[in-house]
């Protein structure tokens, strides 16, 4: 099927734009960047999609052996099964829409070619990650998307906060990657191979402690990439990048890589109950915590960023409860509505010439109707209003959670209510009431609104794409009990959230501030994101920095090492003044040493039996 073409075309686009982009006309840069992603999408639609019905197992293409060292054999293999296919469609499809959108969004930004080159590079790495047939190749894509994320967060590198955010994302991800690489090492030790097929084939026979350890280490990696507790702190800051980046990388695709990786590793997890449990707990904790923070954010992108973290938590709940297909299902619907929310907020920001604070918006409904209506579609989808996409996937996860542990279900329900509340709070603050800003809002060009409209349709109707049925052959069977009462509870939670938002921000706008005044302590705590960044700073960053400075630098380096070295050095200096003659800077002396060495080598070879 020539699978390698799928990532290779964006790579080509990256190379052309990256190398020559500065000199190429803007239209050509656009054509190359968007065209390459379109070709990729086309290839997926033409080659992968039609065969999906027959594709029961995995289809693998081997290109060449990358590493052959001892019994470590790593090939460059691309594999497609139904899980991969779903991901390919999400990545290329959403990616294409966001590329199109970026044409309009980035039209007046400097570094146009650089942006698209990075975006294409990201597409390449993301597709490698998804197509990889072994963990090491997946790790290549994994690191690559991390790199692109770093580059794109720091896209406005002349702004201090953007570069700081980029660094933060990169460093936090390093912790996760460390876990991932440890997992890969352990896997090789345990199974002697890194190929999915081999590893999964032997997983059931492996000892449980090993599987648990591997699973937990993989989870550390997934936590880094998919912004779960405790490594979620980078994602909200990552909003410093351009909005299409937030939509593509930090909502729709890259951050779900952790979900993909854990879902892909289901044969390991299904024999590692402890790791599964941890995933579920981490997921629900993240979902709840991020949702509470999202309630009080004033930056429109920050609201959606915390929403993303929260929704990712849901996906992990799905995985952790054994409902892999539900998790994947939610990845897809989330990709639709969250990409739409981000692109829509980008359109709002674009309309207001860079304004991101919800307090300076309001009444935009009349100024930018297309954005408003499309974002409304996403909002109802994320709030879980039936029959829109978010309802189906979220419900599948919550039902699975109820089966596993009812408390997770109830926390999930509360989170769902909060989700509905903060999304509609943002919508109401931005689009209703009277305009509180100073700019003149203008609707975005068609190149931006058309992708919005397509995503709106997908958000509304995406729930009818039969992902769980499609993935039945991939994952172990998970029997879901359709409980209408539970379903009703979750719908009610959503509606209550919407209603509360309406009450507080439209019906009685003053009530929100009053409420904040009454619970001042709690408000401050949540408004400042539980001071997690500050705590991390105090507990991790400061000690490391200070420890490095005091213990390693002043103590070890300056005191112990320098001291001993200086003492020794003084002794050595006497000897060195003789030996320094060797390092005379005179080439002919050096040559003499070379000659001396070669004579020695010949003598040694003669002694060692070279002379037979």
């Amino acid at each position, binding site marked *: 099927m020539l699978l390698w073409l799928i990532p290779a075309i964006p790579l080509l686009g990256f190379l052309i734009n990256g190398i020559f982009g500065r000199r190429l006309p803007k239209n050509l840069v656009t054509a190359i960047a968007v065209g390459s992603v379109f070709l990729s999408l086309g290839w997926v639609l033409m080659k992968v999609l039609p065969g999906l019905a027959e594709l029961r197992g995995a289809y693998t293409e081997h290109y060449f052996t990358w590493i052959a060292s001892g019994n470590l054999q790593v090939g460059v293999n691309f594999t497609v099964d139904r899980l991969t296919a779903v991901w390919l469609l999400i990545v290329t499809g959403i990616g294409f829409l966001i590329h199109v959108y970026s044409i309009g969004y980035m039209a007046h930004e400097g570094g146009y070619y650089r942006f698209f080159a990075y975006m294409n590079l990201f597409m390449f790495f993301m597709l490698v990650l998804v197509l990889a047939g072994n963990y090491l190749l997946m790790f290549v894509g994994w690191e690559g998307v991390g790199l692109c994320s770093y580059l794109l967060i720091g896209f406005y590198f002349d702004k201090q906060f953007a570069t700081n955010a980029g660094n933060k994302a990169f460093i936090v991800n390093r912790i996760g990657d460390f876990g991932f690489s440890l997992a890969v090492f352990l896997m090789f030790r345990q199974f002697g191979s890194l190929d999915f097929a081999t590893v999964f084939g032997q997983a059931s026979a492996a000892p449980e402690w090993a599987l648990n350890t591997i699973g937990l280490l993989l989870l550390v990696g997934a936590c880094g990439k998919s912004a779960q507790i405790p490594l979620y702190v980078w994602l909200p800051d990552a909003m410093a990048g351009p909005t299409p980046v937030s939509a593509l990388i930090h909502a729709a695709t890259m951050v779900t890589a952790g979900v993909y990786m854990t879902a892909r590793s289901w044969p390991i997890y299904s024999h590692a109950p402890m790791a599964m449990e941890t995933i579920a707990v981490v997921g629900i904790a993240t979902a709840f915590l991020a949702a509470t923070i999202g309630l009080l954010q004033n930056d429109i992108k920050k609201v959606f960023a915390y929403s993303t973290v929260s929704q990712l938590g849901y996906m992990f709940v799905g995985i952790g409860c054994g409902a892999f297909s539900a998790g994947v299902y939610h990845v897809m619907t989330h990709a639709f509505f969250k990409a739409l929310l981000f692109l829509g907020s980008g359109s709002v920001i674009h309309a207001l010439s860079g304004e991101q604070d919800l307090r300076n918006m309001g009444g935009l409904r009349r100024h930018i109707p297309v954005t408003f209506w499309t974002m409304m579609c996403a909002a109802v989808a994320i709030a879980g209003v039936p029959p829109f996409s978010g309802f189906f996937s979220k419900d599948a996860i919550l039902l699975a959670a109820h089966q596993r542990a009812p408390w997770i279900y109830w926390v999930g329900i509360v989170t769902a209510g909060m989700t509905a509340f903060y999304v509609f709070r943002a919508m109401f603050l931005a689009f209703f009431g009277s305009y509180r800003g100073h700019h003149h809002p203008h609707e975005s060009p068609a190149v931006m609104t058309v992708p919005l409209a397509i995503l709106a349709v997908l958000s509304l109707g995406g729930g009818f794409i039969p992902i769980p049925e499609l993935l039945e052959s991939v994952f172990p069977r998970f029997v879901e009990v359709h409980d209408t009462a539970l379903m009703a509870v979750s719908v009610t939670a959503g509606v209550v959230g919407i209603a509360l938002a309406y009450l507080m921000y439209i019906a009685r706008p003053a009530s929100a501030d009053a409420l904040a005044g009454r619970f001042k302590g709690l408000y401050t705590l949540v408004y400042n994101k539980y001071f997690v960044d500050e705590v991390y700073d105090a507990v991790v960053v400061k000690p490391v920095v200070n420890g490095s400075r005091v213990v390693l630098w002043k103590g070890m380096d300056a005191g112990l090492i320098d001291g001993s070295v200086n003492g020794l050095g003084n002794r050595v200096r006497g000897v060195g003044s003789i030996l320094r*003659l*060797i390092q*005379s800077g*005179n080439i*002919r*002396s050096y*040559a*003499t*040493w070379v*000659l*001396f060495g*070669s*004579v020695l080598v*010949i*003598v040694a070879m*003669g002694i060692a039996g*070279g*002379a*037979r």
Partner: protein
Amino acid sequence: MDGILFLIFAVVAVLCGINVVVQTHPISSAISLIGVMGSLAVLYLLLGAEFLAVAQVIVYAGAVMVLFVFVIMLLNAGAEARKGRSFMVQLLGVPLLVALLGLLAYFVQRLFPQTVLVQFGKFTGGGAREVGRALFTTYLLPFEVTSVLILIAILGAIVLARKELE
């Protein structure tokens, strides 16, 4: 006939080689080096390496050494000054050199008995056809890599030469 030719050109090569080392003026060294290369080309012919013999003359004597002569003329390099000294070289140079030559000669005599004789015409695998075939089949990748190397060398030379113009 073979032996006489070998002796003539071996002697020429060694004499020219000595001349390369003892002449103080670089252009005399260069001319002597051309002499070495020319006699080596004849020895290549005796060993059945027709193509290499011609390539030796075209590439080494005809291109590389012309470049040397050109640079010597361009810089108007005179006879070298007898200044600067290296303790190492004076102390160890000659003994090491003698040791190297002695060891090499000893091992050659030891490892290659006198029975392997070189006769002109015994080995005919060194024509353009054979070399070309090997170059473009078995050694295709190294060949292509070398072409990249040459390209880089050209670029390097241009960059270096351009810098001095400014």
